[in-house]
């Protein structure tokens, strides 16, 4: 018998030597499902034979069929199932109705084999129904408590000593998986977690992994669940990804109806919003009333409040990292949502079965239809969003992702007898990514990224007379992550980008050259290299540290002005094409310590330094986005830099049903910019002469109590923070509060599921009012009553508060494939009039209209007025999928 086995082995070797490629010999490759947990290889092969009819041949001297392993596959080709055995050193080959297994011949000089005393469990963690990657899902060894989190692609790698393990795989909102495995060799397991759907009758206790919560806490990472985004009422029934950030302590929105937000004392341009790694420069529709992303297209939203990982750079205050859905890998699904404002349709499904999936989402507003009966002069009024994501698995180690986002706003109006005018803006962002597993512990990703923002203010649509501004980026990013063991991760990468700025010129027709020139177009190159390490020093103490080095280089063609000490231009320098004429460098270290004070209590302290090389140039105090331009750091615009130190504690109760965190932070910002009084921002080639530099200081603490799951879930947060600015040339150098300085901020979010039909949400926000600059006196000039000011931001708007309510009724019949629901919501339920400005320049007419006086012959009798965006807004939306 042994002799026969040896002969068979020789035959196998010969066949494998003459076979050019496994795939060429591959025959019928049936699609199967297998759920083999902690079973011997022999058992598994027997079951595969029963399922497929294939018989397995192998050399028993070489292959131990007693090896215990777990394999979980749903509707996968047999070849893929067998490929997972490659981690055990077993390779397969189809031969008619046989499958031949062989052990790879290992060179006696193979260093890895000789020194190998550790084994790696790796793979992906996905949603069982859709196949979507569960970003941040964790796998933990229950005996040691050590765990690792799946990365942005759902990939995990867990390297440990060979022995029997009880692994616990979890993700919030999903039923956890627990397996026992005798991990003797490198093993790949795909975990498919089942979503805890609210209308399931049984109450499923789900919990997050303690290590995951602690690790996220230590890294400063926050996450918003897509279910929370959908539950928080949005304007007129449109759920809003950006505005849902208000649930996070430390993030304050500027005003009602605004997508402008501030994080830990940073100005609005200090926030980087990424959609699958590509920046989106203006994520707003209808001037900010709605935000750009459709909740149904989002897999995951991560938020970093200043202490970003080294792989993120270029902003001082936050990174909002939005990951789009990859698309259902198992079934074709159509879903959608319609509200009074817009309709969204999503299509997703597998493509090239088990190799790829796609996701397409389109949203189109129907504003014009709604206003048509009220006005005839509006020719165009709409906004669109389009998301596309496609991924293709080349093999078990290589995968390609393609992402694209496009958002358009269009408003065109023609008053009788005049030309057509209006506004349009367009965001385009996309990338191609290549995930490559160098081995089970070494994951790399290469991304080609593009992004473009183009804004037009049309004074004559037909003649294409327009003020135009834009910013774009083309970048290459390479990241590599090494997972030697749980608690120890090494990451490194490079980022090479070219940024293009068109800071506002006037064009007529299709001419590329502007007829009226504002600021010269600019180009800048950003080259960054970074690494970050995470090490477990002791079972209680973890350290994270990293470094990012950035070189920012301005490149021609460009016109730069030389300013004197009074900010008057005294010379002009024209730089030719591609000439690098100015470079800033920045070294951005960061270090964080996490200490386990007890089983339920973690403490951390983190210090980080960040730099920012591009600015949104605007002296607007409006809650809406408007005519704004981006400018790069250059000889006249210094890069902003910040140092932030954060410390905090996190408490989890034993079953993770309650978490409490308290964080305190201090942030200093250098080269913080502001503007002189009545700065001339548009069409001004010398706009840099209107900017003044100083420092900003922000400090505060944030408290968050979360009950993340159950029939009732929710959170309560409170933050205290102050942001004080000092700019020697403004306010006579006297410190003043930033216009978004809001000392107190309180937020309450409650979600209640009384039964499978209803899902009820209440959301209450309270913040101190924004600082404003109000006059301390008035004088008269030519009949105009002119205010004058003694101090910037000397006053404060009334406190802001608002209650939003929503209730979702699930209309799905039991057993039906067609899932649908209807959501009723009231934004600002008690109709609080939260002002965004106070004005001293208007009169009340007999008609009741509040207007600016025109007649200057007599003192007009001015009134003080406040403007606010909305009162109570009820709405309804309908969602479906099948």
């Amino acid at each position, binding site marked *: 018998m042994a002799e026969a086995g040896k002969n068979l082995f020789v035959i196998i070797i010969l066949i494998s030597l003459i076979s050019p490629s496994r795939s060429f010999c591959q025959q019928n490759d049936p699609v199967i499902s297998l759920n083999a947990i902690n079973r011997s290889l022999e058992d598994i092969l027997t079951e595969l034979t029963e399922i497929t009819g294939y018989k397995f041949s192998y050399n028993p001297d070489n292959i131990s069929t007693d090896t215990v392993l777990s394999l979980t596959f749903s509707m996968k080709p047999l070849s893929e199932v067998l490929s997972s055995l490659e981690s055990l050193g077993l390779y397969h080959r189809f031969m008619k109705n046989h499958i031949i297994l062989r052990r790879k011949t290992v060179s006696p000089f193979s260093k890895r084999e000789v020194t190998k005393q550790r084994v790696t469990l790796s793979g992906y963690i996905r949603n069982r129904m859709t196949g979507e990657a569960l970003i941040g899902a964790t796998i933990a060894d229950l005996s040691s408590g050590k765990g690792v989190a799946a990365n942005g692609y759902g990939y995990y790698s867990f390297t440990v000593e060979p022995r029997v393990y009880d692994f616990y795989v979890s993700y919030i909102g999903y039923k956890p998986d627990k397996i026992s495995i005798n991990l003797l060799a490198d093993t790949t397991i795909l975990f498919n977690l089942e979503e805890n759907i609210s209308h399931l009758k049984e109450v499923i206790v789900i919990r997050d992994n303690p290590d995951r919560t602690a690790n996220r806490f230590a890294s400063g990472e926050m996450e918003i669940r897509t279910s929370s985004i959908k539950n928080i009422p949005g*304007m007129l029934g449109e759920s809003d990804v950006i505005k849902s950030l208000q649930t996070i302590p430390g993030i304050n929105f500027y005003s009602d*109806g605004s997508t402008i937000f501030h994080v830990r004392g940073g100005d609005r341009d200090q926030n980087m919003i990424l959609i699958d790694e590509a920046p989106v420069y203006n994520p707003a529709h209808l*001037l900010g*009333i709605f935000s750009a992303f459709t909740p149904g297209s989002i897999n995951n939203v991560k938020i970093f409040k200043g202490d970003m990982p080294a792989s993120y750079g270029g902003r001082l205050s936050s990174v909002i990292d939005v990951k789009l859905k990859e698309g259902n890998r198992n079934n074709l699904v159509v879903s959608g949502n319609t509200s009074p*404002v817009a309709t969204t349709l999503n299509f997703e499904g597998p493509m090239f079965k088990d190799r790829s999936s796609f996701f397409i989402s389109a949203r189109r507003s129907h504003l014009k239809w709604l*206003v048509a009966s009220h*006005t005839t002069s509006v020719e165009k009024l709409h906004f669109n969003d389009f998301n596309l994501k496609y991924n293709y698995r080349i093999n078990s180690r290589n995968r390609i992702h393609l992402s694209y986002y496009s958002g358009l706003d269009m*408003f065109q*109006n023609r008053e009788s007898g005049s030309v057509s*005018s209006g*506004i349009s803006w367009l965001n385009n962002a996309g990338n191609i990514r290549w995930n490559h597993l160098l081995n089970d512990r070494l994951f790399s990703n290469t991304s080609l990224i593009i992004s473009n923002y183009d804004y037009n203010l049309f004074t004559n649509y037909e003649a294409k007379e327009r003020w135009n501004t834009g910013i774009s980026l083309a970048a290459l990013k390479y990241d590599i992550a090494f997972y030697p063991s749980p608690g120890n991760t090494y990451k490194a990468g490079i980022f090479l980008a070219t940024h293009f700025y068109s800071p506002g010129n006037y064009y007529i027709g299709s001419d590329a050259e502007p007829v009226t020139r504002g600021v010269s177009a600019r180009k800048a190159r950003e080259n960054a290299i970074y690494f970050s390490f995470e090490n477990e020093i002791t079972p209680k103490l973890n350290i994270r540290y990293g470094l990012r080095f950035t070189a920012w280089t301005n490149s021609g063609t460009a016109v730069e002005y030389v300013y004197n000490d009074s900010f008057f231009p005294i010379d002009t320098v024209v730089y030719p094409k591609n000439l690098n004429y100015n470079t800033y460098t920045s070294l951005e270290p960061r270090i964080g310590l996490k200490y386990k004070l007890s089983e339920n209590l973690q403490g951390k302290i983190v210090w980080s330094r960040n730099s920012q090389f591009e600015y949104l140039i605007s*002296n*607007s*105090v*409006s809650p809406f986005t*408007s*005519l704004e331009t981006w400018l790069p750091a250059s000889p006249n615009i210094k890069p902003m830099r910040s140092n932030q130190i954060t410390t905090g504690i996190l408490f989890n109760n034993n079953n993770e049903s309650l978490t409490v965190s308290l964080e305190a932070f201090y942030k200093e910002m250098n080269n913080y910019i502001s503007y*002189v*009084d*009545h700065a*001339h*921002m*548009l069409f001004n080639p010398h706009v840099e002469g209107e900017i003044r530099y100083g420092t900003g200081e922000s400090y505060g603490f944030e408290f968050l109590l979360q009950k993340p799951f159950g029939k009732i879930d929710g959170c309560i947060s409170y933050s205290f923070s102050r942001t004080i600015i000092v700019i020697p040339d403004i306010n006579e150098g006297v410190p003043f509060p930033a216009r978004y300085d809001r000392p107190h901020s309180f937020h309450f979010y409650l979600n209640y599921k009384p039964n499978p039909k209803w899902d009820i949400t209440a959301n209450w926000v309270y913040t101190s009012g924004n600082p404003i*600059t*109000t006059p*301390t*006196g*008035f*004088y*008269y*000039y030519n009949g105009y009553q002119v*205010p*004058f*000011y*003694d101090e910037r931001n000397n006053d404060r708007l009334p406190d802001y508060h608002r209650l939003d309510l929503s209730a979702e009724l699930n209309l799905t019949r039991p057993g039906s494939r067609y899932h649908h629901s209807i959501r009723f919501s009231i934004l600002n339920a008690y*109709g609080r009039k939260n*002002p965004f400005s*106070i*004005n*001293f*320049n*208007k*009169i*009340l*007419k007999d008609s009741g209209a*509040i*207007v*600016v*006086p*025109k007649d*200057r012959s007599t*003192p007009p*009798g001015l009134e003080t*007025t*406040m*403007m*606010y*965006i*909305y009162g*109570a807004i009820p709405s309804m939306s309908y969602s479906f999928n099948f």
Partner: protein
Amino acid sequence: MRKLFIILLFFVAASCEKIVEWPVENYVTPRLVVEGMLTNRQGLNYVTLTLPVTDPNHEPQPVSAATVAITDGENIAVLSESLDKPGTYIPDPEVAGVIYKPYRLYISISQYEFIADAYMIPVTPLEEFNYYPLEKNPGYYAIAPGQSGQPSYTEYRVEWINLSDPATVHTSIFYTFTIQTIDVNQFFKPNAEFLAFPGNARVIRTKYSLSPGHEKFIRGLLSETEWNGGWFDLLPGNLHTNLSTGAVGYFAACSVVRDTVYFE
């Protein structure tokens, strides 16, 4: 562009503006307010000195007994305080400025001295007078001011007599401006009072040139008044001034053109 915001209002249901009580902090340092105008025409020249008010709509307190003079470096005109209008200083009737000449305003009050420099540039001719009848209000007209090619502003002084009260001359004054900058709040300025005039009104138009410094002052003035209170306000701030020593306001040297037109 305001149409877009009307549409926004439509969508956000009850968005609006309301009158509130809002006490302002009192200023710390009193400032001299100067409204100075030197033109190339006799009788249009004056300097008004007042103090600011702390409450809107209060009558400003005039600053009397100041020494006020204007010089072009060769000649000096001393202004005397008007008996009818305390705080308003006027030169001799024959005094007028000359285009392309620099002027300096000198003010002395107690131990304080204030200086302002201005330069007079030419003004372009008045634009064609455009007006239109109101369909909903027959017999009344509205003025549709034209835009000048150069920075300037035009004062429209409209005078008329109501048949029911023929003894009283009604006067309305408003201004239109041409400046070469574009600002967000200008583009999206709030609604303004609509002025309509009877057909028997006469319109006296006076167009003033704007030097770059004066244009900057006017831009700030508009930003704080006519353009303020819309959906896209800019950072508020004190107006540019050419006055020294902490005074506010502006001393302008403008060449002017004037005409008088009638609706009917």
